[in-house]
């Protein structure tokens, strides 16, 4: 059994980030519930945050941290607006099926 490395290698972080992002994409594509879709988006954003922080650590530069803070702020704002929209949609339609909200089609 090989000895454990001194610290966790970069590739592990990046792999985790890719897996999380893939889960987010899959959730966005396959789930019908708006709230789940919404959570999938958050998951993708945080996967990206993880890779930002990883590279920031690796390159010894602070830019990645600043980016991830920006992403968090935007995500918080988006969550506030998005949840409000979802609540309104549910109030008006009594459904959270994403394919039913299609009155702009045709």
């Amino acid at each position: 059994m090989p000895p454990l490395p001194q610290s966790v290698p970069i590739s592990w972080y990046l792999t985790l980030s890719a897996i999380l992002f893939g889960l987010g994409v899959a959730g966005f594509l396959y789930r019908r519930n708006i709230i789940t879709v919404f959570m999938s988006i958050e998951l993708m954003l945080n996967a990206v945050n993880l890779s930002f922080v990883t590279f920031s650590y690796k390159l010894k530069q602070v830019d990645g941290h600043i980016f991830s803070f920006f992403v968090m702020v935007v995500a918080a704002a988006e969550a506030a607006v998005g949840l409000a929209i979802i609540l309104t949609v549910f109030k008006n339609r009594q459904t959270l099926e994403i394919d039913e909200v299609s009155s702009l089609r045709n």
Partner: protein
Amino acid sequence: MQLWLIPVFPFVGFALNGLFGRKLPKRAIDVIAVGSVLLSFLWVLKTLNALGVFAGGNALETAYVEHYFTWIQSGTLNVSIDLAVDRLTAVMLMVVTGVGFLIHVYSVGYMADEGGYYRFFSYLNLFMFFMLVLVLGANFLLLFVGWEGVGLCSYLLIGFYFLEKFATDAGNKAFIVNRIGDFGFSLAIFLVGIHFGSLDFGRVFGQIRDMPVEASPGWITAISLLLLVGAIGKSAQIPLYVWLPDAMAGPTPVSALIHAATMVTAGVYMVARSSQIYLHSTFALDIVAIVGLTTAFFAATIGLAQNDIKKVFAYSTVSQLGYMFVGLGTGAFSAGIFHLMTHAFFKALLFLGAGSVIHALSGEQDLRHMGGLRKQIPITFWTLMCAGVAIAGVPPFSGFHSKDEILAAAYHHAPWMYWVGVLTAFMTAFYVFRALFLCFFGEYRGEHHPHESPVVMWGPLAVLAALSLAGGYINVPRFLEPMFPLAEGGGDQWLVYVSVAAGLGGIALAYLFYVASPKLADSFANAFHALYSLIYNKYFVDELYDATVVRPVVDGSRTLLWRGVDVGVIDGAVNGIGHRARGIGGVLRLAQSGYIRNYAAWMVAGAILVIAMIGLAGGAR
């Protein structure tokens, strides 16, 4: 000397009446329209007086030019806005503004009850503006501007009663037929520009004067003939005269001003203006004379059998314009201009008098429904008689002097031309007096109650009558001598006697046919029925043009240009592009499902594609 004021006065009148005329009271429209032309006339008098024209002597032997500004500068060609007065222009200015003013005054009475009063006067003033630009312009292009402008006003005024189909048709006909002439004229201007490098009259004629007459190159003949094409269109000569008789659809003062006294003489003016060019091409001069003589003769024969009083005078105008061209073509340019002036007097008078008759009969124009009017409308009768003796060439009235000059020149050029001219003079006297006798003698054959015209109408008639009688003593040929040398050798005395006898004979024959024994005319017409119906139908020229030109053009436009080119090619191309775009869009719209997950899937697929390409290219490492 402020020459520019001469055309600008009527232009201001046009602008005021055209912009505000709808709201102005009638009196104000009268004052603006007539006043602007009067100012223009007075300014002409003042200018000519300042130039010493009325003092006699050798004033104005060279042109007086005023330069305002450069209009077009392109390469070596330089065209300016220049106005110029020389002796020829002086005659034209007096005729245009003088006769124009009288006709404006007359129109106040004639148009009093017509709709579109302000529109009429603004057009009339606009016409005066363009006509004055035409005669004052010091280069070919400025002349052309006036030339086209008067054509436009002619079109607008012929179609003045635009609710009537025949009036708008006549307007279109005049405009379209004139296009043919203007095409030739513009080609002539291009040729002048190419060969002389300038369009300025002074420079062009100065250059050509120094060229040897014997060895003049072919392009001078080309320029002369193309200018003649323009003149033929504007001055209604064979083969383009057909628009002028139809132009009588306009109000009668318009017929008098534009289609008798001024605009139609623009062609004569232009040929006289370009006399230096013509003198270098005897061939072109011969063509001018032959065109003029043919027109004079054939138009006179048509005039013999017309029943519409205005049509008679219209064909008479065509015929007299032909006379002027005979004068020009036989080298007697000053005689042509002299006849232009006297013709402006007596033909304007004939038309205005005819208008007075029509006015008296509430719109009746057919000679067969007139008769015996000399008691009811005596002033009109006497003034028209003055015009009649003037146009018939009875000495010592104005037409006699100018016609005599032309016939003498024709005789010296070629005796047969003189004899055709004499025959034409005979017919002229006959048809004019036929119209006058049918109108004023015998029994009244109409239903309307005739009434004499107001003073505002017969005043101008009286002035024009005086000019028609005495205008021959204005010695125009002598005045124009510095520009057009007089022909050598006085005419033989017997030439005068023969032409006078022809005129008097025509009057006598008309008297015999239409007053003394009216039955004779009908039996004569029956005896020569074929000939009569030929000239009654104007030689079927309109029908001929219709069959050979108008129909092919209309049919060709309809089948080839409209259904073929327009519908097939142009519409086909536009609609085809539309269909193709629709087809492509139809395919692409399948991608736009409206499901957000589909779009996300496309994005994922795109991202994977990009990453795969970077990976394959061995990129970011």
